């Protein structure tokens, strides 16, 4: 969904750039509370992982591809503010080093792909996870659903920018329908990657998943005293 230069006019791009700068400032403050000596390296690696995953365009319907946006994934793993910063870093590296995503469109891209995915997707994930039974194996499902929906939502925000500052005069509703339609399919890929990645980490280290906080029983160690019945069965399956 990387917007190139030329799609959105200069005033709108500039306004989006201002929002992006303010948002990054907000995230830098918020991320302070999320990061500690153990999660800081994880934040860097999650950003690197999102960068790598964004290189992998997977095919969706008829001659179209899509790739992970990663906002929901990063937010769940390292926290919403840190996650938005991680995706912002990815977008900056892509635009400045790989000529992917326009320089004038950086603000639009950061707002849609880093901020909107997180600001919508992370609370949605927490709501889903809160409403579901508190089971470790259900959190990746909540993550996948939130990730799925975050993609068409981000595409709608792009349409919003287009309706304000699109350089070609078009029917907004037809662009919106086309964008949401294709991004629902891309969202399925987003859901699969997000669900599997969250599941992998939560299986080995639930305590490292920021978004799982307060949702899982705290006790990780349980005292197993052999009772006569388990002792009789040898304790081994």
């Amino acid at each position, binding site marked *: *969904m*990387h917007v190139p230069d030329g799609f959105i006019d200069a005033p709108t791009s500039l306004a989006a750039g201002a929002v992006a700068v303010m948002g990054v400032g907000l995230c830098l403050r918020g991320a302070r509370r999320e990061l500690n000596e153990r999660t800081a390296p994880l934040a860097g690696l999650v950003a*690197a992982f999102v960068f790598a995953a964004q290189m992998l365009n997977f*095919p969706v319907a008829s001659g179209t591809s899509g790739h992970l946006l990663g906002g929901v994934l990063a937010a769940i793993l390292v926290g919403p503010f840190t996650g938005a*910063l991680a995706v912002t870093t990815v977008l900056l590296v892509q635009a400045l*080093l790989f000529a992917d995503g326009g320089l004038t469109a950086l603000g639009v891209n950061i707002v849609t792909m880093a901020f909107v995915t997180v600001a919508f997707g992370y609370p949605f994930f927490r709501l889903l996870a809160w409403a579901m039974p508190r089971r470790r194996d259900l959190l990746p499902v909540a993550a996948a659903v939130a990730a799925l929906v975050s993609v068409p939502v981000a595409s709608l925000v792009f349409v919003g920018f287009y309706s304000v500052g699109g350089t070609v005069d078009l029917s907004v509703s037809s*662009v919106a329908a086309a964008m949401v339609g294709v991004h629902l399919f891309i969202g399925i890929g987003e859901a699969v990657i997000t669900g599997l990645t969250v599941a992998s980490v939560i299986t080995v280290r639930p305590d490292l998943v920021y978004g799982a906080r307060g949702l899982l029983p705290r006790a990780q160690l349980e005292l197993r005293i052999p009772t006569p019945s388990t002792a009789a069965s040898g304790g081994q399956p």
Partner: protein
Amino acid sequence: MNPGSRSRRDIGVLMGFLVAALLLAGVVSYYASGDPDGLNKVAIDKQFASSEQPHDLDDSPLAGYATTGVDDERFSGGLAGVIGVAVTLVVAGGVASLIRRREPQETRPGATSGPSA
């Protein structure tokens, strides 16, 4: 709970992400779909693709995820991917640890070292 053993156990997850990122960007990316992405496809269908302007950095050494001067397509893309992973890791990890470090390292006198809110 021994903090030493915990951070050593963190390394498993961290290494997992590093290895996955390097493999995906360095090797698997070669097999990625080259079809236009969702936005580009809509731009083509709705006929605003032509409003795209060339990127100012199209001549830069890694533009388009290809490494200038490396002829082998597979290696050129893989190398660009690995460089991207490294740069992203350094920038994001660097920012994260800078933010973290600015916080007062040690707890205030009299504060307990136990978990706080």
